[in-house]
C-alpha cells in the first residue's frame, strides 16, 4: 500500500479561450521520483502551480498531504520545496540574505546542509541575486528549495538552460532527497533521457491531457520497437495492428507498438513480412509515438 502525497482529481483549467488542463488526474506516491514529461505548453507548469496553491482549481480537486493547498497554504508549503522554471528570486537580496529570508519561513531549515551546498556550488554569499549568472541563480534557488529538507520537492524544468555541471547539481539534489530522507520528488522536464534515468514514475502530458502515467517499468514494458522486413516494398507506412508510429520506407520499417505481440506478428505476416528484431522501446520513442510526432501509420486494419 503506497501512501499518496499528491492526489489530483479531474482538474480543469483554462486561460481565456485556451484550455491548459483538460481533466487531469495525477497521483504522487511517497518516497518516489515522479517525472513529468511534455513539450512546452503541455500543461506541466500549470499542474505544478496547482500543487503549490499558486493557481486555484476551477473544476476538480487538488490535495497535497491530504490538504487543499489553496485553503491550507501554510501547512502545505512548509513541507514543500519548490524551484520554479523562471527561478524567481528577490533580485535585490544578497545570497546570505536570501538564505536567512527563506529560513524564516521554514522551522526545519538545515543550516549545515545549506552551508554545504553553498560550498559545493562555490557561491559567494555576499553576491546579489541580480548579479548571478543563470547557473548560479538556479543553484541559489535550489538551496532555497531543499535546505529545509521538504517532504515533497517540486522542481519545474530543473535542467532547463543549464550547463552540464549545474544540471548535475540539480539531479544530485533529487538523488539526495530520496536516498537520504526518503522524500518525494516531482520534477518536470523535456529531456527524456533525464526523465528515464531519474524517474520511478513517469507521466506524459500533451496539450493539457495526461497521455500516459505509471511506474516507469510498467510504461516501458507496454511498448516495443520492432524492425520489420517485407517481401514487397511499401510507399506508405503499412497498416499494422497495435502500431503507434513508424519510420522507414520500402521494405524495412521500424515500428513502435503496444499490446499484444501476437497480434502484431500476425498482421506483419499477413502483409508478407517478418519481424526481424524486437526490443523494449525507449522512453523517447514512446513519447514521440504517443504525442504523434513520428510518422503515423495509416488506419490500422
Amino acid at each position, binding site marked *: 500500500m503506497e501512501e499518496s502525497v499528491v492526489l489530483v482529481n479531474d482538474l480543469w483549467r483554462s486561460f481565456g479561450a485556451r484550455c491548459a488542463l483538460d481533466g487531469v488526474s495525477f497521483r504522487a506516491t511517497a*518516497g*518516489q*521520483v515522479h517525472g513529468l514529461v511534455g513539450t512546452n505548453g503541455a500543461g506541466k507548469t500549470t499542474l505544478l502551480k496547482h500543487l503549490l496553491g499558486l493557481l486555484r482549481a476551477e473544476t476538480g480537486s487538488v490535495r497535497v498531504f491530504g490538504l487543499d493547498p489553496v485553503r491550507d497554504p501554510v501547512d502545505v508549503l512548509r513541507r514543500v520545496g519548490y524551484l520554479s522554471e523562471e527561478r524567481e528570486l528577490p533580485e535585490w537580496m544578497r545570497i546570505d540574505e536570501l538564505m536567512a529570508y527563506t529560513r524564516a519561513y521554514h522551522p526545519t531549515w538545515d543550516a549545515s546542509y545549506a552551508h554545504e551546498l553553498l560550498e559545493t556550488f562555490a557561491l559567494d554569499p555576499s553576491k546579489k541575486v541580480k548579479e548571478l549568472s543563470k547557473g548560479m541563480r538556479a543553484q541559489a534557488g535550489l538551496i532555497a528549495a531543499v535546505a529545509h529538507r521538504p517532504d515533497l520537492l517540486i522542481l519545474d524544468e530543473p535542467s532547463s538552460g543549464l550547463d552540464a555541471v549545474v544540471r*548535475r547539481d540539480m*539531479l*544530485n539534489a*533529487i*538523488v*539526495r532527497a*530520496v*536516498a*537520504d530522507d526518503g522524500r518525494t520528488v516531482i520534477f518536470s522536464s523535456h529531456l527524456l*533521457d533525464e526523465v*528515464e*534515468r*531519474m*524517474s*520511478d514514475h513517469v507521466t506524459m502530458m500533451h496539450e493539457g491531457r495526461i497521455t500516459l502515467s505509471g511506474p516507469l*517499468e510498467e510504461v*516501458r514494458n507496454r511498448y516495443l*520497437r520492432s524492425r520489420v522486413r517485407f517481401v514487397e516494398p511499401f510507399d506508405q507506412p503499412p497498416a499494422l495492428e497495435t502500431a503507434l508510429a513508424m519510420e522507414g520506407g520500402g521494405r524495412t520499417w521500424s515500428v513502435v507498438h503496444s499490446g499484444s505481440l501476437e497480434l502484431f506478428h500476425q498482421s506483419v505476416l499477413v502483409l508478407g513480412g517478418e519481424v526481424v528484431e524486437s*526490443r*523494449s*522501446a*525507449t*522512453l*523517447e*520513442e514512446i513519447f514521440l509515438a504517443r504525442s504523434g510526432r513520428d510518422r503515423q501509420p495509416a488506419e490500422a486494419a
Partner: protein
Amino acid sequence: MDITITLADGVPIYRQIVNQVKYLVASGLLRPGEELPPIRTLALQLTVTPNTVVKAYSELEAAGIVHKRRGSGTFVSEGRSHLALRERRRLIEQRIDALLAEAHQLNFDTEDVLRMLRERRAAMEAAADDESAVET
C-alpha cells in the same frame, strides 16, 4: 564500481546494473567479500533514481550474487563458481566472438585460430613449468 548506463537500446537501467555487477563478479573484478557502493553513492555516480539501485541490489541478492549485512552494506557473496553455466558460457562466448571477428579481419580462418589456441596453451604450460596452475 565501473558501470556504464546507456539508454539507446531500451534495456531497463536496473537490469543494466544487475548485468554489469554479474559480469564484474564473474570476471573477478569484484571479489567475494568486497562491498558494493552504497545506494546513494551509486545513484549519484550514475545519475539515476536511488530506487533503481535498490531494485538492482535486491535482484542481485535474490540471485545469490550479493548479500546484505545488517547495519552495514551490500557485499559480494562467496562461491562465484555457482554462476550458472549459461552465464559463464555467455561471458566466454563474447570473448570468442571478438577473437573470431579479429582473426577474420587479419585473414586467419577458424582452423588457424584453433591451432594457435593450442600452441599458446602449450607455450603457457611450458612457461609455468611444473606448476599446474594453468589448468582450466
